[in-house]
Every structure is written in structure tokens, then in C-alpha cells.
């Protein structure tokens, strides 16, 4: 690839899609190039994320200072913030839209949309997605969906306010609360557009990974990022249509007088038509059939990015590559049979509850395996503690903290007293919110040079990491204790309850931490846009990484590689391989004597290091004996 520049002038001939002349519109707006679409997803995601975060700060202020007036609220919210007091209806709207934005718009589209688009063609060695046109449509559906959601903020009655899960009857009866009117309709429209976007994106990702890999890129040589994106897309493909069905039935209940989800609702509450015979719980079943896989749709890409970043920046192969793939698959399969754990206290049959407990706790095993493998990868590494690696370590830390509290909530018996309290808020903000955001940040810091050809400012990156990491723990860790005291989530204020008033100081502390976290994101936003414009130019492979995207030139061209697409001769994790000159061997470099890409690379080097390195086996023994003790203890 050393002569890449000489190829640049004729890259138009390698452009499979015939974009010989590019106008501003076709290059930046209706682009079909996966790299540009990735940037569009990312920047839309960042904008939506900023909005979602601003919302969270407003309702945090309300929770910390329920008696104080903030005149600026009236300035920005108008009649919803009259006299500087947040309206209780709008509080519910804020938590609903905050949840919707963060779950769907930032962590599904912003995270998986960005990195799947950017990395799938580049890492599997393809010129673009299988269908660049559908890919463009996918972004524009997402964009329209974002617009509809934003428009809903300004309608009379306010945006949807029934919580991000929009349980009927609250969401099905337009008169139940102000937010269940036009705002709810627009919410449903936005989500249907979003589903269209997710499905179009998903089919593209799956097709590209399965059909368009370059020569030598066996499934067992794929980087773990691609495995994660692939399984994520499969999960989305299987679960989003069910949400679509649930949403359609809800629309009919709202607008056409059917009663799928409504039972025993008098006519005066339900728009003049008495509703009998439906089941509100049916909606919850359909919703969580998507909703739980959705958690992994959010998390798996973040874990995939983490695998890649940890291996690269530790200069070590990822520990247990096959186990990592196995655990992704296990998590994916199990995620479809555990949705009931969101519904333990809906009066479900206790036996059914037991089945869901079993499934839920089994899912902890592959999750634990992933965690241990990350830690084992760090062990004896050569840790380049870049912002990307720090964010990846942060992800693992949140994944542990939040995952462990899942063992409380997944156990039906314990869920009785913890359901819908702040314990749940703490749990999912750590394991899904913070962890996935950290995965996304890790990815941005790692692949920023690939996306924009510039380096981000390291100093600001470190400041961003430490402020965000500390403030995230300060925000969410204390919430566990509020949950254990029985403080329910989605309460506008706790002042009406004696036993919750002891948490006044804690609420103030949490809000301050949240504001600090918010300010830290300003560092990031400044760094991000400033680096795009004024950042230092990057070299082709700044992290000395093995994967294929770094073999493509810094200058972005249609078709990704000038000349031939590189062939792949090895897996993505040959870091610090003994006997090699450098501490990395890119996937497109053949071993001596390896002519056919499909042959395995020279195995002797590997065998040598694995079984005969005295240092390794010695450490192994030490680690073993410790674990054996633990094992023996557990058995006795």
C-alpha cells in the first residue's frame, strides 16, 4: 500500500457506483458512501444526545431543588416552565423523550448506525455496503424520525409523556394526560420511521458481512467488532418488526376505536367508545419482546468496539476470541427468551415468572465470560492508555457494576421490592446507558482519524474521560440506595414523603455530578468539531492496528481502496506475536510461505509462544492456583 498516492488519480475507475462527478448535495447530503453515511449518523446522534442530556439536566434540577425557581426555565420552556417552575406534565414529557432519544436515537442509531456503517465495509474488505441506496434511505428515515420527534416537542399538550415504554392505557387514551394527544401520535410516527431505518440498515449490514468479505476473510478471522455488528443486526431484524406490530395495534386503539390493549375503560375516558375485551399486558409482552433484545442491540456494538480497542491498545491479542464469539451468540439467543423479567409484577403466572428468572440469570454467564476475557486481555499487556482505551476500561467497569445489580432485578422475588425504583434507574443507566456511551466514545476516539483524517486532542480527551467517568459513578451509584429505600422512579418530587426527604442532600449531589458530567461533554463536543477543522493530520495507521480499515488511505475515496482490495491472511489479533519484527501484523500481511489467503498462517510461532514460553506458563500456574482455590471453596 506504499504506492497508494499514485493510484489516487484513477480512483474514479474503481468506483463501483458511478459517481464520477460529485456535487455538494451528492457528496455530503444524499451521499451513498458508507463513510459519509456513518458521519451523518454520528453527527445526528451527537446532536440528539446533546438534546437528551440537556433534558436530563433540567429534570435533575427539578429533583434536586423541588422548591426552587429557575427563571431560565420559563425562557426556554415557555408555559411549561411558568414562574421558573417545571410543570409536572412536562417533567413526564422530559423523562419520556430523554429515554426515547437515548435508547433509540443515540445508542441504537448513533452508536450501531455509525460504526456498523463505517467499519463493516472497511473491516471485511468491501468497496461499500451491499446496497448503498438502501443504506442512504436508512439514514434519511432516521433523520426524518429525529425531525418528527423534535417537532413533537412543540405541539399542544407537549410530547409523549407516558414513559419511553409508552404502556397503554396511558398512551392509548388521548385524554389520559396532555402528552397522550398529538405528542403521542407523533412519537408513534417517529418510532415507525425509526424501525424502517433500523430494518433497512440491518439487512444491509447482514448482507455485507455474509456476502462481501474479501478473499481470506473467513468468519473466524473477522474482527470482533464485525461479529458484534452482525449479531446486533440480526437481533434488530428479528425484534423491530414485532415492535412495529405492537405500535400499529396501539395506533388503531388510539385513533380507530379498537380495544387490543384496553379493557373495561368507560366511554367517557376513551373518546366516546366503550373499550372492553383487550389486554394492557399484551402490549407489554410485545414491547419487551423487542425491548429486551434492544438492550443488547445497544450493548453488543459497544462491547465489540471495546474488544477491538482493548486488544489494539494493550498490544495483545484479545483473550479467548472464540469464547467471545460464543458469548455474543449465547447472549443473542438468550435475549429473546428473557423479556418477561420486565413484567414480574404484572400479575403473571408465578411459574412463567420462574422460567424467565432462569433465562435471565443464565444470560449472566456469557456476560461474565466476556468480562473475564477483557480483564485477561489487559493482564500482562502493554497498555497504551489512550482516551479510547480508558473509555473501554470504563465500559468494562460499568458493565461489571451494572451487570451485578442485574442479578438482583432478574430474580423475581427481589424484583418485587425493587421494581420501578431508583435501583432500576441506577442499574440500567450503568449497564446500558453509561457502558454503551463509553463504548461509543471509545469508538469515536479510536476511529476519529479514520473518519476525518485528523487526530483528536489528547489532553481534552483525558479531561473528558475522567470527568465523565467520575461524574457518571457519582450520579448513578448513590441511586442504588434511594432505590433500596423505596424511592420510585418517574416522581416529579419526593417532598410528599417523609422517608424520602432524607435523600435531599443526595439528590443535590447527584444533580451537581450530572452538571459536571454535562460540562465534560462540552469538552468533547468542542474537541470533536475543533479537531475536524483544525486537528493534526493523521498518519495512515496511527494506532498500529491490524484490521483492514487502516490499510486504506487516509484520503477518503469511493470504493475505499485504490487498486485491489487487500487479501486477508490471518485473524485480526496478531499483536506482539513472538518472532515478529513489530508488535503488530496487519491482517493483509502473509506469513512466509503462505500463498493462499485461505491457508492458516504459520502456526509454529504461535505454538511456540503458547506452550513453551516459560514466563507464560509460570504466570498461568499462579493464576490457576488462585482460581483453583476459589473453585474448591465454591464446591465445598
Amino acid at each position, binding site marked *: 500500500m506504499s504506492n497508494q498516492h499514485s493510484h489516487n488519480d484513477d480512483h474514479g*475507475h474503481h468506483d463501483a457506483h458511478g459517481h464520477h462527478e460529485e456535487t455538494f448535495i451528492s457528496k455530503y447530503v444524499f451521499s451513498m458512501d458508507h463513510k459519509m453515511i456513518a458521519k451523518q449518523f454520528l453527527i445526528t446522534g451527537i446532536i440528539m444526545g446533546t438534546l437528551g442530556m440537556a433534558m436530563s439536566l433540567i429534570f435533575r434540577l427539578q429533583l434536586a431543588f423541588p422548591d426552587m425557581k429557575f427563571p431560565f426555565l420559563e425562557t426556554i420552556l415557555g408555559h411549561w416552565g411558568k414562574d421558573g417552575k417545571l410543570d409536572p406534565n412536562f417533567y413526564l414529557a422530559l423523562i419520556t423523550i430523554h429515554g426515547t432519544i437515548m435508547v433509540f436515537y443515540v445508542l441504537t442509531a448513533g452508536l450501531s448506525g455509525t460504526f456498523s456503517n463505517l467499519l463493516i465495509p472497511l473491516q471485511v474488505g468491501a468497496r461499500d455496503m*451491499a446496497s448503498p441506496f438502501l443504506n442512504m434511505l436508512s439514514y434519511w428515515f432516521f433523520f426524518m424520525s429525529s425531525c418528527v420527534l423534535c417537532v413533537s416537542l412543540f405541539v399542544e399538550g407537549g410530547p409523549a409523556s407516558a414513559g419511553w415504554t409508552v404502556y397503554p392505557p396511558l398512551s392509548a387514551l388521548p385524554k389520559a394526560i396532555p402528552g397522550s394527544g398529538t405528542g403521542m401520535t407523533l412519537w408513534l410516527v417517529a418510532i415507525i420511521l425509526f424501525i424502517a431505518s433500523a430494518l433497512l440498515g*440491518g439487512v444491509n449490514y447482514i448482507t455485507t458481512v455474509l456476502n462481501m468479505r*474479501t*478473499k481470506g476473510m473467513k468468519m473466524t478471522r473477522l474482527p470482533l467488532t464485525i461479529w458484534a455488528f452482525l449479531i446486533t443486526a440480526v437481533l434488530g431484524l*428479528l425484534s423491530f418488526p414485532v415492535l412495529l406490530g405492537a405500535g400499529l*395495534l396501539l395506533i388503531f386503539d388510539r385513533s380507530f376505536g379498537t380495544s387490543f390493549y384496553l379493557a373495561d375503560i368507560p366511554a367517557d375516558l376513551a373518546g366516546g367508545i366503550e373499550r372492553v375485551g383487550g*389486554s394492557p399486558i399484551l402490549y407489554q409482552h410485545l414491547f419487551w419482546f423487542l425491548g429486551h433484545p434492544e438492550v443488547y442491540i445497544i450493548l453488543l456494538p459497544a462491547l465489540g468496539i471495546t474488544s477491538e480497542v482493548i486488544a489494539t491498545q494493550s498490544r495483545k491479542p484479545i483473550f479467548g476470541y472464540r469464547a467471545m464469539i460464543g458469548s455474543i451468540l449465547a447472549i443473542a439467543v438468550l435475549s429473546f427468551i428473557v423479556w418477561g423479567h420486565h413484567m414480574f409484577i404484572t400479575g403473571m403466572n408465578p411459574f412463567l415468572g420462574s422460567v424467565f428468572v432462569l433465562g435471565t440469570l443464565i444470560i449472566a454467564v456469557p456476560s461474565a465470560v466476556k468480562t473475564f476475557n477483557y480483564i485477561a486481555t489487559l493482564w500482562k499487556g502493554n497498555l497504551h492508555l489512550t482516551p479510547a482505551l480508558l473509555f473501554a476500561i470504563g465500559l468494562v467497569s460499568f458493565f461489571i457494576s451494572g451487570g451485578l445489580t442485574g442479578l438482583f432485578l432478574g430474580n423475581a422475588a427481589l424484583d418485587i421490592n425493587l421494581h420501578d425504583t431508583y435501583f432500576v434507574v441506577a442499574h440500567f443507566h450503568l449497564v446500558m446507558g453509561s457502558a454503551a456511551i463509553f463504548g461509543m466514545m471509545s469508538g469515536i476516539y479510536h476511529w476519529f482519524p479514520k473518519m476525518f483524517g485528523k487526530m483528536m486532542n489528547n489532553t481534552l480527551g483525558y479531561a473528558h474521560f475522567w470527568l465523565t467517568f467520575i461524574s457518571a459513578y457519582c450520579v448513578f451509584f448513590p441511586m442504588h440506595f434511594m432505590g433500596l429505600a423505596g424511592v420510585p422512579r418517574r416522581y416529579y418530587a419526593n417532598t410528599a414523603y417523609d422517608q424520602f426527604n432524607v435523600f435531599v442532600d443526595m439528590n443535590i449531589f447527584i444533580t451537581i455530578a450530572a452538571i459536571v458530567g454535562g460540562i465534560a461533554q462540552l469538552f468533547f463536543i468542542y474537541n470533536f468539531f475543533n479537531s475536524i477543522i483544525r486537528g493534526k493530520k493523521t498518519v495512515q495507521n496511527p494506532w498500529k492496528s491490524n484490521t483492514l480499515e487502516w490499510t486504506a488511505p487516509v484520503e477518503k475515496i469511493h470504493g475505499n481502496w485504490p487498486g485491489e482490495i487487500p487479501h486477508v491472511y490471518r485473524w485480526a489479533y496478531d499483536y506482539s506475536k513472538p518472532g515478529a519484527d513489530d508488535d503488530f501484523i496487519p491482517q493483509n500481511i502473509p506469513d512466509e510461505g503462505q500463498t493462499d489467503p485461505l491457508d492458516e498462517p504459520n502456526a509454529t510461532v504461535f505454538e511456540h509462544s503458547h506452550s513453551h514460553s516459560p514466563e507464560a506458563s509460570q504466570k498461568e500456574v499462579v493464576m490457576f492456583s488462585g482460581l483453583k482455590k476459589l473453585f474448591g471453596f465454591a464446591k465445598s
Partner: protein
Amino acid sequence: MIATVNQNINTENEAVITPKKFVLWLLIVASVMLFAGLTSAYIVRRGEGNWLSFDLPSMFAYTTGIIALSSVTMQWALISAKKDELKNLKIALTLTLALGVLFGIGQWIGWQQLIANNIHLVGNPSESFVYIISGIHLVHMLGGIVFVLVVLVKTLQFNVHKKNLLSISLCTTFWHFLGAMWIYLYFFFLLNR
């Protein structure tokens, strides 16, 4: 695993054929999930009792026949295209199109029959489900009819033949899916009244 090797630009266009079909299959999977979700909702709701049982309109039996027949004509069109029998191809596609439209009209009449039978969209969920599930299928069907129309136009422009089978084979796959889905739905309704 179909490992496509994108060695140079000339082979790439051929390589794209497989992914398009693959995309279609994935979209069909998504659609199957939609109907699976709706029909399982139907079963779950039915299991809770308070369920109004009624006879399906007689028209649905005829439309089931029509859509099965249209699958045959569609397959005939594909075979004709493979053999380059353009005249048969045109006849078969036109027939398919006509049968598709007929199916749509039949569904509409079926709904009218339901209404005459005092089964309305607004009422017991058992009634609403039949309308909505058959309605969503009809929306898919409209997509299919447009697809057939596009292929027919291409045929008239001599763009479908032995060496250019992509669009018609995609269309055939989709059309068979629509037929199979309706037959499944019809028997599902019949067995789970």
C-alpha cells in the same frame, strides 16, 4: 458461505446479484417476524377468554385459491423467462398481475361480507385482529403488485430474458412469500377462531 471476491471492477457487478437476493430474503424474514408477532398476540389474547368466535367470510376461501393460482402463474413466468419464451412470459406476468388485483378486490369484498355479518373493526379484539392482520397483508400485497408491474414494464422493454433474470427472480420470491403468508394466515384464522 458465499465468499465474494471483489478482485476488480469488472467482476464486482456480477457479485452484487447475490446480495440483492439476500437483502430480499432478510426483508422477508422481517416481515415474517411482523406477522409472527401479530399472530402470537392473537393467540395470547385468545387464550385469555372473552373471545368472539365467528365465521370467516366465504370470499376469503376464494381469495386463497386466487393467490395460490397466481403463484403458479408467477412461477410459469419465471420458467418462461429462463427459457427466453418472451410471449409466454408476458402472458404469465399479466395473468399474475390480474390475479393479484383480483385478490385485492376479493379481500375488500371479504371485509364487506364481514360487515354485513355484523363483524366490525371496532369491537371484540377477535374482530379487529382479522381486519388488521389481513389489512397489513394487503399492504404487502400492494407492494407485490407494484413489483410485478415494474417487472412487466421491464419485460415489455425487453429487459427481462435468459441473461437478465434478477428482477423477475426477486419478484417471484416475493410473490411466493405473499402467497404462502396469506395461506398461512387463512388457515391460522380458520383453526384459531
